[in-house]
């Protein structure tokens, strides 16, 4: 391997941009996503399928809320916290939103440092992201406990339409599960980054393949998606 012959790759076909690029990428017998690895493309396609899952949940919620003859409980009052002698509307949900957005910010920076091959900063930022995520799940557990102690059940609640409980538990429960899985995913990848797996090209335990820093971006895609879903839940369930 001392003297390796220099080879020049054959010139690739021109890649037009814009709409004609879209047409030529999808046309004929070729790889569609030119500059995206299979890992990233598959994560995007998984997220697309997840979009439909959450889309259907929110649709079910919309249908239930629109078709009920009993008034819907006012989320502003239901999710108010009693702080300093007065009810502050939605305050816990607002804090949860800020926590999740902060975790997205640290994740975006982790991806950036990952591509700079700065393994310490990448791992530290991923751990911080996981910490924010765990905080979010903790606050959600607090919220669930509070509502359950107030008598909210999937089949009834003290304030109005009984469907409120079932949609609330289903939507936030599924989202919380996604956050929890994301935290586990983050911890696993952060450990690999910290150990230097992607610098020494250590082979993966399960796949026996060499990883690279792109996995940080793929993890990031999943994490940002969790934040994205929360944006929609916050708007439609808590604010509407």
């Amino acid at each position, binding site marked *: *391997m*001392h003297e*390796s012959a220099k080879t020049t790759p054959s010139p690739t076909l021109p*890649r037009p*941009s*814009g*709409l004609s*690029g*879209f047409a030529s990428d*999808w046309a004929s017998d070729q790889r*569609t*996503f*030119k*500059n*995206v690895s299979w890992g990233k493309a598959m994560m*995007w*396609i998984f*997220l*697309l399928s997840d*979009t*439909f899952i959450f*889309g*259907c949940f929110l*649709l079910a919620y*919309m*249908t239930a809320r*629109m*078709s*009920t*003859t009993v*008034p819907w409980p006012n989320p*502003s009052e239901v999710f108010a916290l009693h702080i300093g002698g007065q009810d502050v*509307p*939605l305050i816990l949900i*607002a804090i949860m939103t*800020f926590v999740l*957005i*902060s975790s*997205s*910010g640290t*994740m*975006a*920076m982790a991806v*950036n440092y990952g*591509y*700079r*091959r700065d393994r310490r900063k990448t791992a530290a930022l991923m751990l911080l992201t996981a910490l924010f995520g765990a905080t979010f799940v903790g606050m959600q557990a607090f919220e669930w406990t509070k509502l359950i102690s107030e008598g909210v059940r999937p089949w009834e609640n003290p304030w109005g339409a009984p469907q409120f409980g079932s949609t609330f538990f289903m939507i936030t429960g599924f989202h919380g599960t996604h956050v929890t899985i994301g935290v586990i995913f983050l911890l696993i990848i952060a450990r690999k980054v910290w150990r230097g797996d992607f610098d020494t090209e250590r082979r993966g335990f399960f796949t026996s393949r060499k990883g690279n820093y*792109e996995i940080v*971006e793929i993890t*990031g*895609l999943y994490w*940002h998606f969790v*934040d*994205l879903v929360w*944006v*929609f839940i*916050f*708007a439609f369930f808590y*604010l*509407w």
Partner: protein
Amino acid sequence: MAQSAAHSAQTAVHAQEHQQHPIKLYLAVWGLLFVLSFFSYLVDYFHVQGYLRWTLILIFMVLKAGLIVAIFMHMAWERLALIYAIILPPVMILVFVALMVSEAHYTLLTRLTFFGAAP
């Protein structure tokens, strides 16, 4: 040794394929998301009601979602082939929304007709 040099050259090329953006960009988007979330919280805090409320909520929601997908998820720098593959299918959910709105109206109508008591 030559191998590692070739390797580092290769990784340098590899790194160039992923656009490097300054950290400042992410901090700016982070700040913007904070501001937008704060505004949507204020909508509830000041009890804005009716169409103004729904319009404001939707505007802030779409802006936030757009920022996350475009900047944080790097969609703004992908090729159209991927952008359309991911962004267009969810738009079809809107058709489903239209179907379910009409279905919900029908359910409400039958409930009011056959189970009496108006809301």
